[in-house]
């Protein structure tokens, strides 16, 4: 994992303020939970760290590296979305394999198969791999397992309905 420092992060969506002048220092190995009412800026803060949205001002460092100019895929962050963000047109196997097939990883087919089956067994969902419509609990486990298992992610972010968690 790695430390995360955010300094003076500000994000406006048009005239609507997402976050303003947010600074936070999260040491390595710390598990942080952020609480707040709806509209407080929790999801915006996570999206800024992950690089999904670009800040109007401020800076993000992951492991002492400034990542402001890096694409989301290059920040080495794993994120679990509130809506799970599963690909509904794909089977469970294809969902798990999809990130591993990306240009970022460039893994061979055999390695992809090995990793998917390894994590499916670990999560006890190997019997669902061919399923195109598993229950939501298994899907959530799938995504959580991916977030922590595929390579050495510097940070793991989970955006839940009641709390956001930054796992470093």
């Amino acid at each position, binding site marked *: 994992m790695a430390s995360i420092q955010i300094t003076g992060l500000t994000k406006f969506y048009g005239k609507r303020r997402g976050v303003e002048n947010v600074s936070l220092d999260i040491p390595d190995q710390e598990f942080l939970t952020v609480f707040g009412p709806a509209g407080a800026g929790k999801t915006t803060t996570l999206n800024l760290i992950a690089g999904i949205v670009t800040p109007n001002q401020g800076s993000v460092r992951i492991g002492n590296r400034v990542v402001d100019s890096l694409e989301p895929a290059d920040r080495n962050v794993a994120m679990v979305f509130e809506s799970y*963000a599963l*690909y509904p047109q794909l089977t469970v196997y294809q969902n798990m394999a999809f990130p591993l097939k990306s*240009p970022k990883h460039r893994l061979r087919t055999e390695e992809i198969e090995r990793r998917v089956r390894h994590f499916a067994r670990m999560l006890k969902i190997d019997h669902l791999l061919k399923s195109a419509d598993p229950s939501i609990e298994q899907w959530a486990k799938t995504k959580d397992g991916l977030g922590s298992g595929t390579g050495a992610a510097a940070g793991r972010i989970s955006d839940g309905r009641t709390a956001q968690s930054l796992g470093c």
Partner: protein
Amino acid sequence: MIQRTHSPLAVVGKTIQMLLLLAYALFALFPLLWMVIMSLKPDSQMLTTTFIFTPTLENYATVLRSDYTRFFFNNLIVSVSAVLVSLVVGVPAAYALARFQFKLKEDIAFTILSFRFAPEILVILPLYLIYQRLGLYDTYLGLIWVYQLITLPLLIWILRGFFEDISPDIEAAAQLDGYSWWRVFLQVLLPLVKPGLVAAGLLCFIFAWNAFTFPLLLSNNVQTSTVIALRYLASDTVHYGQVAAAAAISALPEVVLALLIQKHLVRGLSFGAVKG
């Protein structure tokens, strides 16, 4: 196991429902049925009989012996090309209207939709003059381009709803996974809007295929089958049977297409309507 009991009232209600649906189906399909009946009647029995007559294929033979197939293929070329152009231009436009925030976004969206408000006859005169000046009169390109007034607004508005129904988290997740925006669009988003693409594409094809005013006034040799049926209205008599046969042949591709992909059509048109 739960056992459902049907009360007599529910059965009566269901029966009335089915009868009303059947009546509406007959009402909606009757013009098509009447057209087919007319196409099978000889001229001599056209006005003297209704449902009892001596069927003949002579009307179809007369139409097909003429150069009707040339105009049928003109219609096919122009309609399919118009839909393809609309897909290439309209899909990214629908995505932009669904996802991006920019000035005058809703005004632009409404302007695109407003192209469907005006009847074609309203704009045909200036269009005729412009087409004459630009050399687009009586060309395939000219018809394909003007058909965008018919197909593009419809396609953009249907697909906008589909794109809005896809959670932005899916795109963000794919970008975090290492995919570029283009690959996310092609590999993730397009498969998700496939029902909408099929429904919108088919509807656009039907509207383009049925276009009458534009090909009537903006072309001469590049005529379509919808217009060419008029020539059976001769100066001495009206060959109703041949008009009906030409119209029946012209309607065939749409009917076959709709029957083949009706599941996609129903799913595509209803999918984007259910929220939550």
